[in-house]
């Protein structure tokens, strides 16, 4: 048998916190051979990044391998001094980090950094650098070599990082959430590239990610980490089809995917929260959250048990863990198709003037503007969820901020039940404010750290609900129950809550005064899948109970197809396709929708990459520079017309509908 490139034996890594050493990775053993891609999945706090850094011997200050060994090509590197590690790092150990911009030196040109990484003779190194950039599909390597990191788009930066990781003969490649900071369409292209390069160079690879779909696509085997322990290790296919640990099963059941809808086949989130590193349960660490747990689980820590010669699980009762069969509980609730129209935007436009340089000021050049929104028409009915999807920079957030009144639109109008809304919050009536509320993206900033949860929930009741303080206080337990938080949380301060709990409080606060319409701006994007599932179900329940409408903004199409009744797809401030969710997404017609939807699949439609900050085309279709299906001149010269596909479904494209329907790649749509 060949020696594996990476062998980890009983590894425990601890961080120094104050005077204590808190173990964040405990007794993990695994091996990775050349050409093998081991996916490492887990939610935040599972220790997956720490594991990745530990095997590279690149732990940050305070981190320390307290027991166990790491072998690289059969050599024990656990206690090698830095001087001995350095040649190893230079030659064979590589890391692609999550945030490429933070990893690149902002003061050096890309070329310099690549040449330094490659080392040796400068002329040879330059040639190698150019070859590497060409290999990672960078169209103009000479120009990129001369660029500074900030001049490149996120996708390009990550390609440079990959190029840097691939020079020479990499033996072990650790990819730590390599695409998490990228848009789905860019992510798709970068993952394609990674898969190709791994197949070509055959390094042993650790692919660390919270994104199960991505791991399913690229990894040959997958390790599931929970609270620092390896709970399951299996060939990727077996893991997804027949998980043998309740946690893995819970993760899969929390994951929105085709076929699941909030009103039938709802998600099944995992109850409870991750244990704190200092306060682990005595028996099985997952027991407090596990439906199968009994006294044995609570007292006796299960060893890693072999299901077969390829699959291991840390569960006493793995035989009872069934495959993934989402419980079907068809809801009787039907969504009103023709409910009252709550919100209408008409020709909503927002332009943001750019700062002029002094010379432009003197020359009296008019300021250049960025079209954040171009003539957006929307209709949202009561008891419906309108999902707005698009990449970053597509104007989704600007749209929500204009509706709520935090940003003043340049032109166009917003009507709330046929009454025009003032452009800014200051000029709207209290009743209008009550009817429209919004949950913002970042749960960490949603709550004032100085105020208790109770105080945060009381304010909207007083301001918008018209209650006096005493009556408002009485309502707080009800609100906490609504978002499934313990009543005792009213006394807590935000610092004592997890991210998911903060977002629940933010949702409770927004719902406190019973709004008619709730705007959710990437409200679940920063959360782990199990928490995300719980919040999606919560939103669905509230909608069934109260008939509220949601404007749900996200980049995640799986979430939209799970929750939304209607979908609008935005590209560069314009709606390019809209209609009922089922019609828009199954199958997608507009090339942009198709690219977004098939980004997670290996054979999906890929967009052309354009330069960072490239100006949008002046005429014609705004999407045309990136469109892989562009017809030619007509797309460049003429703005595409709206094409009606029936049932309120329409899209903006020059390609005739019949043709769009036939050029679909059906196998790519359902991964």
């Amino acid at each position, binding site marked *: 048998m060949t020696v594996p490139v990476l062998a980890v034996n009983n590894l425990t890594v601890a961080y120094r916190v104050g005077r204590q050493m808190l173990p964040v990775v405990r007794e993990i053993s695994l091996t990775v051979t050349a050409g093998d891609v081991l996916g490492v999945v887990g939610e935040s706090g599972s220790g997956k990044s720490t594991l990745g850094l530990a095997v590279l011997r690149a732990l940050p200050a305070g981190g320390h391998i307290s027991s166990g060994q790491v072998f690289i090509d059969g050599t024990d590197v656990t206690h090698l001094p830095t001087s001995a590690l350095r040649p190893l790092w230079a030659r064979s150990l590589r890391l692609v980090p999550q945030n490429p911009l933070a990893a690149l030196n902002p003061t050096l040109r890309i070329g310099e950094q690549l040449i330094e990484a490659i080392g040796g003779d400068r002329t040879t190194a330059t040639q190698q650098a150019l070859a590497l950039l060409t290999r990672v599909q960078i169209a103009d390597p000479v120009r990129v070599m001369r660029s500074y990191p900030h001049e490149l788009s996120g996708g390009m930066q990550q390609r440079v990082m990959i190029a840097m990781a691939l020079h020479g003969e990499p033996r072990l490649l650790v990819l730590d959430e390599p695409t998490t900071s990228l848009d789905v369409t860019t992510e798709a292209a970068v993952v394609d590239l990674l898969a190709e390069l791994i197949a070509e160079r055959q390094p042993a690879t650790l692919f660390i990610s919270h994104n199960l779909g991505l791991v399913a696509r690229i990894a040959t085997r997958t390790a599931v980490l929970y609270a620092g322990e390896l709970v399951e290790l299996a060939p990727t296919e077996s893991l997804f089809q027949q998980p043998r640990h309740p946690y893995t099963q819970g993760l899969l059941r929390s994951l929105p995917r085709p076929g699941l809808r909030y009103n039938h086949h709802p998600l099944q989130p995992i109850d409870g929260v991750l244990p704190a590193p200092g306060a682990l349960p005595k028996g099985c660490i997952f027991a407090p959250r596990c439906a199968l747990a009994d006294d044995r689980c609570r007292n006796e820590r299960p060893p890693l048990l072999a299901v077969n010669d390829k699959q291991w699980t840390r569960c006493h009762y793995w035989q009872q863990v069934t495959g993934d069969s989402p419980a079907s509980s068809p809801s009787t609730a039907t969504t009103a198709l023709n409910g009252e129209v709550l919100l209408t935007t008409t020709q909503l436009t927002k332009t943001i003037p750019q700062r002029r340089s002094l010379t432009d000021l003197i020359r009296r050049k008019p300021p250049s503007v960025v079209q954040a929104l171009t003539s957006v028409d929307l209709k949202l009915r009561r008891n419906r969820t309108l999902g707005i999807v698009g990449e970053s920079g597509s104007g989704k957030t600007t749209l929500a901020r204009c509706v*709520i*009144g*935090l940003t003043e639109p340049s032109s166009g109008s917003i009507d709330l039940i046929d009454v025009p809304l003032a452009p800014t*919050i200051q000029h*709207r009536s*209290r009743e209008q*404010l009550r009817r*429209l*509320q*919004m949950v*913002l*993206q*970042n749960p960490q*900033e*949603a*709550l*004032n*750290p*100085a*105020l208790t949860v109770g105080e*945060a929930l009381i*304010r*909207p009741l007083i*301001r*918008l609900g018209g209650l006096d303080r005493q009556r408002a206080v009485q309502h707080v337990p009800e609100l906490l129950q609504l978002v499934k938080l313990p009543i005792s949380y009213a006394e807590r*301060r935000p*610092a*004592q809550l997890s991210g998911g709990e903060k977002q629940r409080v*933010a949702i409770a*606060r*927004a719902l406190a*005064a019973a709004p008619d319409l709730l705007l959710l701006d990437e409200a679940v994007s920063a959360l782990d899948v199990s928490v995300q599932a719980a919040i999606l179900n919560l939103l669905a329940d509230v909608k069934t109970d109260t008939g509220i409408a949601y404007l749900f903004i996200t980049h995640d199409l799986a979430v939209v197809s799970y929750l939304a009744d209607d979908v609008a797809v935005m590209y560069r401030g314009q709606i390019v396709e809209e209609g009922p969710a089922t019609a828009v997404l199954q199958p997608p017609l507009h090339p942009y929708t198709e690219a977004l939807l098939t980004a997670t699949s290996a054979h999906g439609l890929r967009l052309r990459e354009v330069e960072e900050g490239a100006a949008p085309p002046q005429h014609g279709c705004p999407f045309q520079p990136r469109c892989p299906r562009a017809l030619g001149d007509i797309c460049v010269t003429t703005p595409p017309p709206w094409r009606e596909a029936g049932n309120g479904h329409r899209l903006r494209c020059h390609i005739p509908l019949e043709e769009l329907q036939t050029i679909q790649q059906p196998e790519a749509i359902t991964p």
Partner: protein
Amino acid sequence: MNFQSLRRAFFADPATATGTIIVFCFLGMALFGPLIAPYSPTTQNADLIRQPPSFAHPLGTDRLGRDLLSRIVYGARDILSLAGGGTVLAVILGTLIGVSVTYLGGWLEELVFRLFDGLLALPALLLALLLLGAVGPSRTGVLLVIVLVYTPIVARVVRSVVLSLKPRGFIEAARMRGERLGYILWRELLPLVAPTLAVEAALRFSYAIFLVASLGFLGVGVQPPSPDWGLMVLEARNEFALAPWSLYVPATAIALLVVGINLMAEGVRRAIRGEMAGY
């Protein structure tokens, strides 16, 4: 932050404890001056001029035979009340301006802070001399100078905190539910500015002590025969060869008080950083 944690912060580490004790000693002097001081600070005695420290006069006497210990004790009143009062006023004014003007933003913010930048561009002492030259040396004048010099500094510090808080979600949430300006400023923003403000106030206080002493030394502050420390240094300067102690005593008092306040401020800073860790 509650009282216990504050008390613990003040006495946990020896440096902070020393600073706190020094400051409290001077505070005690200021409050109970007449009980502590053995003589009147202004009574002259021609028989006892320039006496070195002795049992009768522990810190010696000056060129007019006044007891230096009594003068230091009474002088603590002036310096602490002027520096303290000035600091409190500057902190209040600076916070009011800093929080509200920064939150409102726009041209008003631009105007106010450019003006403050202008004030800050002038050295504090020069500004003080100009102002006191105009209104004449007096206690009120000194107080005004401290307020004028330190308000812009406090406002700037407050501004930096408010700027980082303004775009946060919870402020936007408050706007979305139509909170009044007052609520946003004083209930949402002020508690988050307060920790930074406490540190800044302590720091300003120690600088204010220096400023009051410097003005006394330049002769534009508190006027004779008041037992002002800075003034005492000025008067003793010419006598240095004859009675060096009369210079050392007030100079040491100033240094001791400033060092004490700084040690205490450092303790406050550390305690608050611990508290803020959760934010």
